[in-house]
């Protein structure tokens, strides 16, 4: 077996520890089968330790393609019939699926990936009988894992890969591969190949899958179906057709249509034969989907045929428009990866909108039936075996509907309901109790405790679903109400926020970002009232920058603005928390000192004078400091009102100016120049 060297880039991906990989039994199987001479018995034992895995393998071994053979019921019989290697590969593939989760790559549609992979697997399984040397199980495994390299990139490099996917959306696959190489030095075809080898799949298998990834939907002149990669190509076309949506681009539909036509030729099938084949594939797809908890949809092939016809017509027109009819169509597109888009999701309720149901019963038989019934209806089901487990899950996952058995040891359904109703999260859940025959005594208490509905055990599936429809309606309404409530709250918050900002703006001086005159006067008024009513003290300090006009005239208004700003800031940072500085206008500021009598306010004013004098302002080639003249007036000086107090402070500023500036004056202090303040003001 000749193998290529594994590129170092793959080893790096692998060492991230987040590559999609088999889990649990899968790992054990990998270990057991590491060498070529592994024991089929040991592997059989390992598989049997997982009952769901066993069931899946038996189902596949007994499936319709092998009709006419005796049904087999044991893993060892399956190994006998299919061969140890095939069983091993199946077990690995199933265990990779069971590990899946919706990863974090935003541009990657995980549910769609699995839906498409499963459809491809089922199609490959059906077509395998026409390919010499490929068993249907091999086809199944190959189909399922054919795009695992894409999944690997989405998982390991979720963010950069989202970017790659978005940038190459709708582009031919060759562009996607090139972009992957440019970003990660490796592409998904190579990763696929390496992962297959890593899991011990044969080299021929790995390279067939790789060549499918490199050369998907290549329009060969002569169609043939004689290798595993041909098989994958046709299976992929069928899978894509089953996932067509209104948004699938015509070009893509055209390619798929060509492939399906080719397939029909190769198989020499009539339209009716083809319909039968596709119908069978679609049926198996939904059956396996249910089994593996992968979403599928009901497909009518007459509608696919119509879609293909319409798509090809549209595509022809597009081409004619673009080139006058002389274009060769680009062959390969990564539509299954991104562009078949969310329309599918909407139609089938994939993704987040599925209604979440929590099933609770201590009786394992009843619980299993309940879960199966609910899952069959497409609910997203979790389950719990007792009340306290249900409580934990409810708080963690917030199910929309809870169906709980009433009679459970320790915590009954009713107690669970009461507990849930006490929590905010549990208050909006729709709770249905499953009760025994003698539930009448319970009715009143139960409804009072917040139970929404009752169903008698043993339950009838149709009846249960009819009752749940009522619940779904309520869940829908609640979701809408919750959404409306959020919108309203958001709008309200926006509005409040806006109003607050408006108010703040109206009270703030835009240049210095300290409160403006209006704010300052409101504050003085309120301090005055409070002082009169409660006997508290306060003082005002009027501040005027000395020779400010000269700064403006000499250095320009920009420098002047910087001086104002810087002075406001330095004053503000000098004050105690309850004191406030405001800009009254021009170069004039007011400090309101709460609780201060005249002497204390003078001390404060002196401190301000010093910090301003020491504050160096640098702006546009200017470097210097300014000084201020300050006038102090305090409530304890017995003014008759706010305006008298303000005027006194103003007068004190004039005195300070007259006395040589850069100093503090208290109101009503005697001064030789106090009688002619107006003259001096002009020279400030």
């Amino acid at each position, binding site marked *: 077996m000749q193998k290529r060297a594994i590129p170092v880039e793959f080893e790096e991906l692998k060492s991230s520890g987040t590559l999609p990989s088999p889990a649990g039994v899968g790992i054990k199987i990998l270990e057991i089968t590491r060498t070529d001479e592994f024991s089929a018995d040991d592997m059989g034992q390992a598989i049997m330790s997982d*009952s769901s895995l066993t*069931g899946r393998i*038996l*189902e596949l071994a007994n499936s319709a393609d092998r009709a006419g053979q005796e049904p087999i*019921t044991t893993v060892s019989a399956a190994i006998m019939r299919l061969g140890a290697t095939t069983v091993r590969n199946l077990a690995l593939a199933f265990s990779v699926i069971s590990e899946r989760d919706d990863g974090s790559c935003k541009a990657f549609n995980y549910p769609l990936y699995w839906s498409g992979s499963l459809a491809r697997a089922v199609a490959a399984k059906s077509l395998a009988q026409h390919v010499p040397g490929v068993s249907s199980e091999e086809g199944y495994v190959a189909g399922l894992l054919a795009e695992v390299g894409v999944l690997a990139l989405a998982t390991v490099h979720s963010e950069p890969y989202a970017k790659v996917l978005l940038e190459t959306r709708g582009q031919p696959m060759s562009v996607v591969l090139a972009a992957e190489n440019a970003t990660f030095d490796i592409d998904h075809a190579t990763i696929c190949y390496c992962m297959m080898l890593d899991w011990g799949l044969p080299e021929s298998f790995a390279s067939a899958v790789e060549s499918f990834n490199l050369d998907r939907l290549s329009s060969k002149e002569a169609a043939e179906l004689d290798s595993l990669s041909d098989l994958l190509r046709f299976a992929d076309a069928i899978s894509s057709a089953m996932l067509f949506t209104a948004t699938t681009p015509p070009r893509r539909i055209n390619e798929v249509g060509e492939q399906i036509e080719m397939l029909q030729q190769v198989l020499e099938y009539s339209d009716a034969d083809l319909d039968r084949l596709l119908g069978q594939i679609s049926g198996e797809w939904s*059956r396996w989907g*249910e*089994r593996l908890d992968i979403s599928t949809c009901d497909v009518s092939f007459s509608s696919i045929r119509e879609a293909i016809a319409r798509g090809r017509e549209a595509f022809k027109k597009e081409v004619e428009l673009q080139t006058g009819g002389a274009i060769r169509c680009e062959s390969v597109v990564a539509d299954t990866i991104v562009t078949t888009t969310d329309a599918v999701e909407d139609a089938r309720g994939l993704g987040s909108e599925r209604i979440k149901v929590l099933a609770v019963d201590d*009786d*394992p*038989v*009843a619980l*299993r*039936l309940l879960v*199966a*019934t609910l899952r*069959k209806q497409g609910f997203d089901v979790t389950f719990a075996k007792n009340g306290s487990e249900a409580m934990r899950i409810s708080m963690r996952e917030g199910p929309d509907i809870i169906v709980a058995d009433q*009679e459970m040891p320790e915590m009954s359904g009713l107690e669970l309901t009461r507990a849930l109703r006490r929590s905010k999260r549990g208050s909006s859940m729709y709770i249905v109790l499953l009760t*025994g*025959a003698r539930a009448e005594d319970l009715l009143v208490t139960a409804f009072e405790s917040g139970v929404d509905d009752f169903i*008698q*055990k*043993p*339950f*009838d*599936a*149709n009846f*249960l679903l009819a009752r749940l429809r009522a619940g779904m309606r309520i869940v829908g309404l609640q979701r809408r109400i919750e959404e409306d409530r959020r919108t309203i709250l958001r709008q309200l918050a926006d509005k409040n926020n806006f109003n607050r900002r408006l108010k703040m703006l109206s009270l703030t001086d835009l240049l210095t970002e300290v409160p403006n005159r209006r704010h300052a006067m409101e504050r003085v008024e309120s301090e005055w009232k409070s002082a009169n009513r409660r006997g508290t003290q306060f003082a005002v300090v009027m501040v005027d920058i000395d020779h400010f006009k000269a700064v403006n005239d000499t250095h320009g208004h920009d420098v002047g603005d910087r001086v104002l700003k810087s002075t406001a800031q330095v004053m503000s940072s000098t004050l105690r928390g309850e004191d406030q500085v405001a800009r009254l206008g021009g170069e004039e500021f007011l400090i309101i000192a709460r609780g201060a009598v005249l002497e204390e306010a003078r001390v404060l004013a002196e401190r301000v004078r010093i910090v301003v004098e020491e504050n160096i302002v640098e702006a546009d080639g200017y470097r210097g400091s300014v000084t201020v003249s300050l006038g102090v007036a305090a409530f304890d000086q017995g003014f008759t009102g706010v305006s008298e107090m303000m005027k006194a402070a103003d007068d004190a500023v004039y005195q300070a100016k007259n006395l040589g500036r850069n100093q503090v004056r208290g109101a009503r202090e005697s001064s030789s120049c106090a009688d002619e303040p107006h003259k001096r003001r002009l020279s400030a």
Partner: protein
Amino acid sequence: MNTSGDSGGPAAHNHSPENGGGEILDAKALDVLRELGGGDAEFLSEIVELFLAEALTRVNEMHAGLEGLEKDRVLQAAHALKSSSAHVGAVEFSRCCAELESHCRSSEQSEDLILTGRRAVAMYAEVQVALKAVLGAI
């Protein structure tokens, strides 16, 4: 899942060979399970196996409770068996458990309780045989 009983009386028991060969099981209930499994036999066998495992413990409990005349113990077992056996179509056995449950709840003499209890334990043996036959036929 219409297991909740329109089978009438013992005379109405189904004799279809598909049900594992005993009249102790209601074939309709088993069909419902097959249908729920989407025509997939594994689901039916999973449910039956779950039941057999669960029921064995419960029947042992019931037996011990009858020996020691512990009404509560018998009651718990009968209650649980009543509902889960109905799911796998053991209608007659389910009915017997229901009867036993009501004997346990009544305050009267326990002779009927003992008789019904023994009948239930004996009947379970038949249920078990019939269900294993169902499993074997899958």
